[in-house]
C-alpha cells in the first residue's frame, strides 16, 4: 500500500501533461475491464480470484462459491479465496476501482472540468491536479486530463491489487493463528485434565490420611492455575477465530469449520537468491516504479534507447549490493533503458529520468532487503519448528516412557507421572507454537515476495491428518 501512494505522489507533475500520445489506446477500455485485469493480476499472485458482484445473479454466484468452500474443512488457500470473494473492505475497494474506471471513461468522452474537484476530495494523496490546473479550453485540456485519468486509474488499479494481496496475507495469518489457538486449547485442556486427576487423587489421599493438607493444597493450587490458563487460552482462541471471521466476511462463525491441526512442517526451504529474483519480478511496487520510469521517459520525449542499465548498480546501491547474489550464482537485476542524451537542452531531462531510475533502484533494493529479512525469519522459524518436532517432542516422549517405567517399579508415584504428562503436553504445545510461527513467517514471506512463493521454494504443505509427531502423547506397546 504505502509504496504505491508514495510512488505516485512523487510523479513529476510535468510528466502527466506530456502523455498525450501514449493515452490514445486507453479509450478502448470497457466497463469492468479494469477489474478483470486487477483480478487476474491478484489471482496470479495469491492464487485466489476476486469477485465484484454488482447484481443479484453475480451475488448469488459468489454466495454459492463461498458456500461450497465453507461446506468442507477450511484450508488456508480456501480461506484466502473466501476473503477475496467477500471480505467487506475489499468489496468497498473494488468499488473504488469501479469509480476510477468510470471516471477514466468519462474523461475520454466528455471533458468535464468539475470532475477534477471531486477527485481531490476523495484522494488526498494525489496533489498534482492543482498543479496541473490548465486555464485552457476543454478541447485543449482533454488529452492532458485523459492522461492524468489514465495514470490515476493505473495507480488505483495497483493500489487495489495491493489491497487484495494484503487481505490475502492477513487472512492467511489469521487462519494460522486461529487453527493454532484451537490446537493449543486442546493441549491446555489436557493439562487441566492432568491437574484435575492429580487434585482429585490428592484429595482422596488426604481423606484417607496419606497426604497432609499442604500436599493436597499444592495440587489444588496447580489445578486452579491450570484452569486459569485454560480460560485465558479460550479467550485468545475466540479472538483469533473472530479475527478470521472478519477477514472472511462471514457473519456466522458456526459456518466455518477449521482443521484440527496446522499443516505439517514442509521439507527444507530453498535458497534466498532465487527468492529475491522472484520477488523483483512479482512485486507490485517494483513494477510501479518501472512503469513510472517508462512514463517519465515518454513524457520527456526520450525515445532513442541505447542500452539497458541495471538500477541495482546505480550509485550507492551498487556498493550495498555488490557481489553477494553473484557469488551465489544468481543474476538479480532490475533493468530499464538508458537513452542518448544529446545536447544541453536535455540535460534537465537526463536528471529527471535518472531520478526516476534511482527510485526504481531504491524500490528494488528495499524489496530485496525485505525478502531477505522475511526469508531469514522464515528459515529460522522452520529450524525451530523442526527442532521441536524432531528433538524436543520426541525427547519428552522418551522421558515420559522412562518415567512410566519408573512408575512400574514404584520408583515414582502417580503424581510424578501426571506432572510429567503436563511437561509433555507443554512440549507439544511449544511445538504447536513453533509450527504456528513457521506458517506465520511463511505468510509474511509471501507478502514480501509480492503474493506467493515461487514454485519449488518448498514442497506443498502436508495436511496434518495423518501426522503423529505432535498430536499424541506417549505411545507404547503393552
Amino acid at each position, binding site marked *: 500500500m504505502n509504496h504505491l501512494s508514495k510512488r505516485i505522489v512523487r510523479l513529476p507533475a510535468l510528466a502527466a501533461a506530456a502523455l498525450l500520445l501514449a493515452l490514445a489506446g486507453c479509450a478502448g477500455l470497457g466497463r469492468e475491464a479494469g477489474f478483470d485485469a486487477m483480478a487476474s493480476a491478484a489471482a496470479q499472485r495469491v492464487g485466489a480470484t476476486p469477485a465484484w458482484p454488482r447484481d443479484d445473479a453475480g451475488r448469488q454466484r459468489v454466495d454459492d462459491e463461498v458456500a461450497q468452500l465453507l461446506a468442507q474443512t477450511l484450508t488456508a488457500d480456501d480461506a484466502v479465496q473466501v476473503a477475496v470473494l467477500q471480505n467487506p473492505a475489499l468489496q468497498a475497494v473494488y468499488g473504488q476501482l469501479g469509480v476510477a474506471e468510470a471516471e477514466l471513461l468519462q474523461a475520454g468522452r466528455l471533458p468535464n472540468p468539475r470532475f477534477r474537484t471531486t477527485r481531490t476530495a476523495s484522494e488526498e494523496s494525489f496533489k498534482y491536479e492543482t498543479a496541473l490546473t490548465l486555464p485552457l479550453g476543454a478541447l485543449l485540456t482533454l488529452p492532458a486530463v485523459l492522461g492524468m485519468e489514465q495514470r490515476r486509474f493505473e495507480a488505483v488499479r495497483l493500489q487495489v491489487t495491493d489491497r487484495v494481496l494484503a487481505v490475502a496475507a492477513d487472512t492467511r495469518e489469521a487462519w494460522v493463528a486461529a487453527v493454532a489457538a484451537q490446537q493449543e486449547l486442546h493441549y491446555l485442556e*489436557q493439562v487441566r*485434565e*492432568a491437574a*484435575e*486427576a492429580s487434585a*482429585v*487423587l490428592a484429595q*482422596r*489421599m488426604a*481423606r*484417607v490420611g*496419606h*497426604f497432609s493438607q499442604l*500436599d493436597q493444597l499444592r495440587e489444588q493450587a496447580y489445578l486452579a492455575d491450570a484452569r486459569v490458563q485454560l480460560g485465558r487460552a479460550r479467550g485468545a482462541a475466540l479472538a483469533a477465530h473472530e479475527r478470521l471471521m472478519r477477514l472472511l466476511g462471514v457473519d456466522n462463525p458456526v459456518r466455518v469449520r477449521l482443521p484440527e491441526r496446522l499443516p505439517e512442517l514442509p521439507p527444507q526451504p530453498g535458497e534466498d537468491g532465487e527468492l529475491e529474483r522472484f520477488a523483483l519480478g512479482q512485486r507490485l511496487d517494483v513494477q510501479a516504479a518501472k512503469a513510472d520510469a517508462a512514463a517519465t521517459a515518454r513524457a520527456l520525449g526520450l525515445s532513442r534507447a541505447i542500452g539497458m542499465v541495471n538500477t541495482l548498480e546505480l550509485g550507492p546501491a551498487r556498493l550495498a549490493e555488490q557481489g553477494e547474489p553473484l557469488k551465489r550464482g544468481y543474476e538479480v537485476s532490475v533493468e530499464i533503458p538508458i537513452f542518448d542524451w544529446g545536447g544541453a537542452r536535455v540535460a534537465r531531462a537526463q536528471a529527471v529520468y535518472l531520478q526516476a531510475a534511482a527510485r526504481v533502484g531504491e524500490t528494488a533494493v528495499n524489496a530485496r532487503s525485505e525478502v531477505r529479512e522475511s526469508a531469514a525469519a522464515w528459515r529460522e522459524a522452520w529450524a525451530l519448528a523442526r527442532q521441536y518436532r524432531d528433538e524436543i517432542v520426541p525427547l519428552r516422549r522418551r522421558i*515420559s516412557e*522412562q518415567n*512410566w*517405567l*519408573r*512408575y*512400574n*517399579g*514404584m*520408583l*515414582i*508415584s*502417580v*503424581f510424578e*507421572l*501426571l506432572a*510429567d*504428562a503436563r511437561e509433555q*503436553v507443554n512440549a507439544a504445545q511449544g511445538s504447536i507454537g513453533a509450527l504456528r510461527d513457521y506458517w506465520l513467517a511463511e505468510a509474511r514471506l509471501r507478502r514480501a515476495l509480492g503474493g506467493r512463493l515461487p514454485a519449488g521454494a518448498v514442497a506443498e504443505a502436508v495436511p496434518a491428518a495423518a501426522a503423529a509427531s505432535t498430536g499424541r*502423547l*506417549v*505411545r*507404547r506397546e*503393552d
Partner: protein
Amino acid sequence: MDRRIFMGAAAALGAATVSRAALAGLPEAVQQRSAATQPPLAPTGGVPYNPVVTLNGWTLPWRMNDGWKEFHLVAEPVEREIAPGMVARLWGYNGQSPGPTIECVEGDRVRIFVTNRLPEHTTIHWHGLLLPNGMDGVGGLTQPQIQPGKTFVYEFVMRKSGTFMYHPHADEMVQMAMGMMGAIVVHPKDPSLHRADRDYVFLLAAYDIDPGSFVPRVNTMLEFNLWTWNSRAFPGIDPLVCAVGETLRVRVGNLTMTNHPMHLHGCEMFVTGTDGGWVPPAVRWPEVSVDMPVGAMRAIDVRFDDPGDWAFHCHKSHHTMGPMGHRVPAMMGVDQSDLVERIRRLVPGYMAMGEAGMAEMGEMQMPLPENTLPMMTGEGPFGPLEMGGMFTVVKVRDGLARGDYRDPGWYQHPAGTVAYEWTGPVAEPQRPPGAPPDAGAAHVQVRKPGGHGSHH
C-alpha cells in the same frame, strides 16, 4: 561427577599401563568371570582344613615359593552381575567384586602382590590382622599409595586364626562404595579347633545405583537402593546348603555404613568369632538375629534339627527390598477406579497400583527401567516371595553328602506339616464377661477385603 566419563577413564587407564612383561615372574593373577558360588579350594598339602565356601564368590589360588604363600591381587574395574537382569560397573579385584577370598592357615608366611589397574592410586588394608605397622596398608600413613600401573608386595605372618577382611585405605570412601573388598579366612593350626562342617563367608555391601544406570553413586551416605551380600541381591544370592545335624558356620563382614541384624529362621545362632578372635564358649549366647556392626566380622555357628527351606535375611525390612522410591506415597484405601480412564488419556497404559497394599508389586512383572531390579520379586513353591536385597534361603536336608553344596531344590514338605486354610465353622469369639461387643474396633478405620467404602 559424570559417572560414565569416570568409568571410561578407568577402563582405558587400567588396561594400558600394566604390561604383561612387567608382571613376569609374579604369581598368576587369576581372573574370575562368573558371579556364581565357586567350589571351595581344598588344601593340597600342609595343615588340613575344611575349606570355606565364598557365597557367590571364589577363593584365590596361591603358590608356595620358598616357604611363602604367594597371592596376586589385581585392583581393577569390573562388571558384576548383582542379580539376573542387572549388572553393576564396579571396582574390584581379579575380575569380580568382591575380590576373591584369601584363605590360609595360622602361622603361614604370606606374600601378597597387589597390582593397581585402577585410574587412581590405591592400597590394601588387612582388616583385623595383626601385622607389622608398615604392612597395614594405610595410604600416606604406613606406606606410599600404589600408583596406577604399579605392583606392591605385602609380606607378613598370619599370627592368628579367624575371619578378616581386606579393603582399600586410599580414597577409601570412593573405592569401597565402588565395591573394593574381600574376605580373609585363617584356619587354626590345630585342625581340631573350631571345626565346622560347612563354612560360608560373605561381605555386606550397599550400593546406590540409580534405576537405569550402572555405576554406584559413590557420594551417597545413607540412601542406598541395593543391599547386597557379596555384591549380589535377591534373587541373585545362592542358597546356603547344609545337612540336618551339621555345624554350619556363616562368616559375615559388614562394609556398609549401617548395621544389619542377620536373621536366620529355624535355629539358634551363636557368635563363635569376631574379627578380634574366637569367642570363648562360656560367653556365647543363643540368638535368632545377630547384629552386624559397621566394619566388623562375625562367625556365626548354627545347627539345624529340622530340614526345610529356612529364610536367611537382614531383619531391616527395607534391606530385603530392591530399588524403590522412598518418597512414593502409599495409596492404600485410595480408590482410583473412576480416574484410571482419565489418566490413561494422558499416560497411555496407566495402571492404578497400591490401592490395597504393595503385594501386587511382587506378583506383577512390569517393564522397568534398563538394568533395574524390581522392588520385590521371586517365586517360591507356594507363591511370590516378595523379596529383594539381603535375602536368601538356607536349605537344610537330611542325609546330604559332606561337601555337596548343590542346590537341592525346594523342600518337599511331609503331608500335614504346612499351614493350611481353616474351612471349618467359625464360632463366636469367647469374650471376657462384661466386655462391650465391639470393644477394640472403635476408631481404627480398617479397609476390609473387597470393600470400596473406606472413604466417605
